[in-house]
């Protein structure tokens, strides 16, 4: 099989190991111009339109354009010899960037045919490119997902592992996932902690704090909490053992000097819930000064100790700490600390939903004379004329007290697939458990030696404690193993350096699952791979389609799209509250979720990826709908809405708050950044960085009347473009950004900018004149093939976990071409990648590349030789 494949690969431009998506026939791209004669028409075109700037002579004269590339010295009859240079040419041609704006261009058909001819020439000469991808370490996301799928426990990996570097736009690149002693130590430490958590050992008390974001607003219902409640916090908390826990709520405090919590509405009631059942109803204690008590709150206010309505189902006796103890406690506590709002309850090990929320009342701060902004916490001190609802600041869960080992939990059900009935069958049961755990964790049937080694750890633990302790030791060892932490692909013994070989089916299963799920393969994939059946094209396609429908495929929206479209950047986006007082964390989260859901719908419904630019639907909740001005959307849950003609401007990525916010500055929009975003992520061409010595803008002309307006942003930027070396790139980016100026720095539609009407007209670099976002979208659709290639390129980068370079571009183009025959459907792109050579193959690197074994250890260099 392999030999045949390799033979094919040399002769074809298309990776077609398995040709899952389409038959091999008809894969030739359109090649309107035939092979070159001596003075080919292509050479004539280049000479006429390009060589004027890109020539050796111009280079000798030091001209910028020629320093970047020269075209008069490249042999058009041997395009493949200079594939790297031609790829750069093709990329700019495809993005419509060359010849530059203002220069003469051939007509569209000629332009197209030259581009297609160049691509064809490069592709037809391109050898398959399958460099060794490198040893992948699981990144934090993959680690957490693997733990979830292996042990059914949700962890926040950032609490265990240092952050990962990223490159090429993604954090799953093998080359960047390095090793350090900090990291190794963290893995070993995490293995021990997670194994205790999963087994549910009787843990010592610990405190875990959940905090609401600094710019939260809690005026509205939060999804997942009961109707009729307002704000608060809902978390899925992993309780380590069976036992008693306390939950303490503190408010968001006012500013540094304030002894009381934020909010000024009296007599609020706070409901505490465990798995959606009320544990207790507390009086909110956060807003008042020490020693004071709210009066006139109605019936039960007289006896503070009795204010809670008693314990709900599952609650332990309310206990001494169950309700505020009034002034006595306050006197002894810190000067800032109001009496605690605390509940003590009993629960079982494992994940439980813990909710803390206010009962909604008919109190309406909206009656304030001043206009209320959406974000509450701009100024957490008292603000005259404003009334604010109190907010939950932290939820602290402490425990367990009187802990006992867990008897039952989701993790335990996942781990203990058998239970010993007596001492005699303990070892047999342990062996069975270990075999299953190791198979899942190592993503392959474990070798007998692996099982024996783990049995050794089991016995060590068993001698110290009980059966569970033994299994705990095993888990700690498994999770620390490089076979878990690394995606190890064993190299077949009989391969020659430099020659590609097909990877094992089990390795293919891992590549698939880390690509589509960011996690380990499931039992079905491992079973098929163990039988050597996964490589069968029909089976493989069925599996890919199954995986894309699986809930775990949400990883594509969260991880892939989250990084490609920089949704993660939203977390760090901090529009200045004084300029954007309506921006708050619920809005930030809603913006992110909207794009994730949009991307997810493309995946699940197997739509065309071009719909990312055009989709006439989106996903909103009340908060986001209000932001967009979409009427009649109530409630915190997301729903799909159709974007009618009046909401046309919100169609596709360019109308999304997430994109518009992350491409703005904290204090204003940035047409440059927006333009660059479109260039990079839609046209696939990142404009070059600015020159090193950008001079400052000339100071504003002295103003005689003293009250002249600030120049608009547009005027300022046009000034900037007066300089010749700035114009070239800014004329690419700025017009695109200008056409989006109707969206302010957080994506709100506006008609005026600081009192001046917004001018969203622009002339784009290919000469097209547009006005506003709809026209921009229409224009971009003219480049939709380019966009599909961009998606293919990004997806391939993410799938392979290495940077895609010019030698991969023939594959990228063939992926896009194949997808085009299937309406650019998402699955078509994925299937093309999965069937490609780099995805299914590896190459042995030459032995000489092995460096001498390390003599340095991290943190410190140490010479070993001198000993």
């Amino acid at each position, binding site marked *: 099989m392999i030999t045949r494949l390799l033979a094919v690969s040399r002769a074809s431009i298309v990776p077609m190991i398995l040709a899952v998506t389409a038959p091999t026939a008809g894969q030739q791209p359109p090649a309107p111009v035939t092979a070159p004669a001596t003075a080919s028409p292509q050479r004539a075109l280049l000479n006429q339109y390009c060589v004027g700037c890109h020539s050796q002579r111009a280079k000798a004269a030091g001209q910028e354009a020629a320093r970047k590339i020269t075209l008069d010295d490249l042999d058009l009859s041997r395009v493949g010899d200079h594939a790297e240079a031609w790829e750069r040419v093709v990329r700019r041609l495809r993005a419509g960037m060359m010849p530059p704006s203002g220069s003469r261009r051939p007509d569209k058909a000629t332009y197209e045919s030259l581009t297609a001819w160049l691509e064809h020439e490069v592709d037809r000469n391109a050898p398959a490119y399958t460099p060794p991808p*490198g040893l992948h370490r699981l990144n*934090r996301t993959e680690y957490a997902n693997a733990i979830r799928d292996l042990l059914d426990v949700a962890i*926040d990996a*950032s*609490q265990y592992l*240092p952050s990962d*570097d*990223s*490159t090429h*736009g993604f*954090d799953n690149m093998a*080359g*960047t996932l390095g090793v*350090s*002693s*900090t990291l190794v130590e963290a893995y*070993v*430490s995490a293995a021990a902690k997670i194994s205790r958590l999963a087994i549910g050992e009787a843990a*010592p008390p*610990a405190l*875990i*704090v959940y*905090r*609401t974001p*600094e710019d939260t607003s809690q005026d509205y219902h939060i999804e997942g909490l009961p109707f009729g409640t307002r704000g608060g*916090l809902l978390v899925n908390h992993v309780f380590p053992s069976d036992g008693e826990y306390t939950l303490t709520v503190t408010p968001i*405090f006012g500013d540094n000097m304030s002894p009381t919590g934020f909010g000024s509405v009296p007599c609020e009631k706070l409901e505490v819930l465990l798995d959606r059942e009320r544990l207790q109803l507390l009086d909110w204690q956060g807003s008042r000064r020490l020693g004071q008590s709210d009066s006139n709150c109605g019936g039960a206010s007289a006896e503070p100790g009795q204010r809670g309505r008693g314990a709900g189902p599952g609650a332990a006796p309310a206990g001494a700490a169950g309700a505020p103890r009034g002034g006595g406690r306050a006197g002894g506590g810190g000067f*800032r*600390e109001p009496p605690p709002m605390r509940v003590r309850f009993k629960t079982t090990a494992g994940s439980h939903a813990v909710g803390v929320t206010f009962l909604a009342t008919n109190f309406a701060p909206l009656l304030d004379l001043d206009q209320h902004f959406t974000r509450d916490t701009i100024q957490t001190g008292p603000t005259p004329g404003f009334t604010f609802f109190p907010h939950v*600041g932290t939820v602290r869960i402490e425990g367990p007290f009187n802990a006992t080992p867990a008897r039952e939990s989701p993790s335990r059900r996942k781990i203990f697939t058998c239970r010993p009935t007596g001492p005699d069958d303990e070892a047999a049961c342990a062996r069975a458990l270990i075999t299953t755990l190791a198979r899942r964790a190592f993503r392959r049937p474990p070798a007998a030696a692996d099982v024996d*080694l783990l049995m050794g750890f089991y016995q060590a633990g068993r001698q110290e404690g009980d059966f569970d302790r033994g299994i705990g030791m095993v888990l*700690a060892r498994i999770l620390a193993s*490089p076979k878990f932490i690394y995606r*190890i*692909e*064993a*190299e077949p013994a009989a391969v020659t350096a430099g020659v590609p070989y097909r990877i094992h089916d089990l390795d293919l299963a891992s590549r698939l699952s880390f690509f589509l799920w960011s996690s380990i393969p499931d039992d079905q994939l491992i079973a098929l791979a163990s039988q050597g059946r996964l490589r069968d094209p029909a089976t493989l396609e069925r599996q890919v389609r199954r995986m894309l429908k699986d809930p775990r495929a949400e990883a594509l929206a969260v991880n892939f799209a989250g*990084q490609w479209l*920089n949704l993660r*950047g939203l*977390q*760090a986006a*901090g529009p*200045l509250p004084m300029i954007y007082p309506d921006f708050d964390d619920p809005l930030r989260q809603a913006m992110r979720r909207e794009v994730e859901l949009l991307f997810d719908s493309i995946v699940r419904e197997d739509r065309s990826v071009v719909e990312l630019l055009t989709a006439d639907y989106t996903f909103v909740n009340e908060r986001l709908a209000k932001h967009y001005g979409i009427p009649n959307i109530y409630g915190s849950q997301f729903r799909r809405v159709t974007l009618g003609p009046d909401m046309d401007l919100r169609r596709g990525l360019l109308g999304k708050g997430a994109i518009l916010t992350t491409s703005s500055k*904290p204090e204003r929009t940035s047409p440059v950044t927006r333009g660059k975003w479109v260039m990079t992520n839609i046209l696939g061409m990142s404009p070059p*960085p600015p020159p*090193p*010595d*950008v001079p*400052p803008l000339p100071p504003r002309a002295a103003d005689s009347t003293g009250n002249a307006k600030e120049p608009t942003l547009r005027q300022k930027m046009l000034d900037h473009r007066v300089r010749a070396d700035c114009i070239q790139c800014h004329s690419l980016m700025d017009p695109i950004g200008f056409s989006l100026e109707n969206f302010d720095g957080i994506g709100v539609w506006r008609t005026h900018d600081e009192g001046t009407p917004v001018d969203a007209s622009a002339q784009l670099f290919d000469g097209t004149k547009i006005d506003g976002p709809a026209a921009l979208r229409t224009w971009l659709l003219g480049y939709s093939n380019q966009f599909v290639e961009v998606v293919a390129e990004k997806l391939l980068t993410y799938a392979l976990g290495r940077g895609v370079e010019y030698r991969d571009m023939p594959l990228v183009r063939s992926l896009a071409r194949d997808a085009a025959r299937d309406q650019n459907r998402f699955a078509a792109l994925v299937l093309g990648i999965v069937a490609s050579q780099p995805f299914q193959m590896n190459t042995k690197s030459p032995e000489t*590349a*092995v460096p*001498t074994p*390390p003599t340095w*250890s*991290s*943190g*410190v*260099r*140490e010479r070993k030789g001198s000993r």
Partner: protein
Amino acid sequence: MFVSKKHIPRRRFLKGAGVTLALPLLEAMVPAATALAQSAAAPSRNRFVGMFFPHGMAPGYWVPDLAGPLPVKLPYILESLAKVKDQTVVISGLWSRSAEPPEGTTGSDHWVAAAYLTAIKPRKTAGSDATVGSPTIDQIIAQQIGRSSLLPSLQLSVEDPNSSSSNCGEGYSCSYTNSISWVGLPTPAGEAEPRTSPLPMELNPQVVFERLFGSGATPEVRAARMKQNQSILDSLRHELAGLRNTLGPGDRQTVNQYTEEIREIERRIQLAAKASASVPEIDLPPGVPEQFDQHIKLHCDLTALAFQADITRVVTLLGARDLTSRSYTFPKSELFPGGGQSVGFHGGSHHQEDPVQVQRYAELNRYHVSTLAYFAEKLKSIPEGDGTLLDHSLIMYGSNMGNSNQHQHFDVPHILVGGSNGQLAGGRHLAYERKSVTTGNLLLNVLDMYGVHQENQGDSTGRLNDL
């Protein structure tokens, strides 16, 4: 804020925000901690701290008018350093040549924070061959003085790189932006340029605390966990040795390095086992504080603790990532009586030379420098031997741009605070002529103070003779 006690308190900060799942307390694998420092500072106990903030400083707001003694009233940005003025040296006019884009290219200068402590332009690559051309000087110093402490060095950061993974580029690996500490690796035969590898910079003070002091409720629990970890580490080494044979050459290198790291941890566990069991008390919020001010001050507190207990002697702190749009809340204080909010860091650094915007940017720099002042005062408050911790430390605070509005890499600010074991006379302003002295020269001087005498470092042309 802290005193030595035998337990970790449960008192926690009440302020702060951010939905964060914190680590359980008392749950670390690394047992015990070394004894707090009991003796006078030995000569090698000259600690080093490298602090880096990108984006330069507002022109006209930080350079003292005259060279020589620092003026009675410090420039606006540096005002917070008043209390440690006699141990402060302000250096103006340095040229961060290594941060400039390579000849003939542009725009790469936002990706080279890693050059701060090497004075060498990093290799332009987005791949696994990222290297900064030499170990950073903190790692060279750690090699010289860090071997006998529990942690040879410690890397801290205040900004999560994962919040914006796609926000670095121009063909440069994000590693250059994320880490200012790079360790030397074995260089394969035939390669001229030394290989280096970035060390991850830890964001979470809770994790830092556990690395420094370990935890575990009782000595018995610690001992049991230590035993378990030792057996796991031991068995891991065997597993790795077996794996080597099944891997291709490239992957084998990774496994080799992994094995080395395990040895390093085993070394640390042995060191820790000899140390006493006392754990200092510190108010530590679980998880990563959302407020910058609290976050960076906690890192400073932890560093002071680590110095005091001689757990580590070398620390680097990345104050912000290049291009960050972060905006800072000024805590109400003498410096900022009304509190307030800064401009976005990167956006504000492009102040257009507009006097109002420059002033707004200066406020932000003033705030950043106040965290240095906080740290220096903290060290000064801790007696050690014949002086204070600050007498036996050197903090190097700096940036790789001068006027960042124009991405100028000359006239870059550098501030040295600390006595450096009597090797540094403070209260001075050293002013150099523009573009005459590169930052590599300063690095050579700093290395000298730790007994590392090199001919050159990066772009150095000599030493600062008057430092």
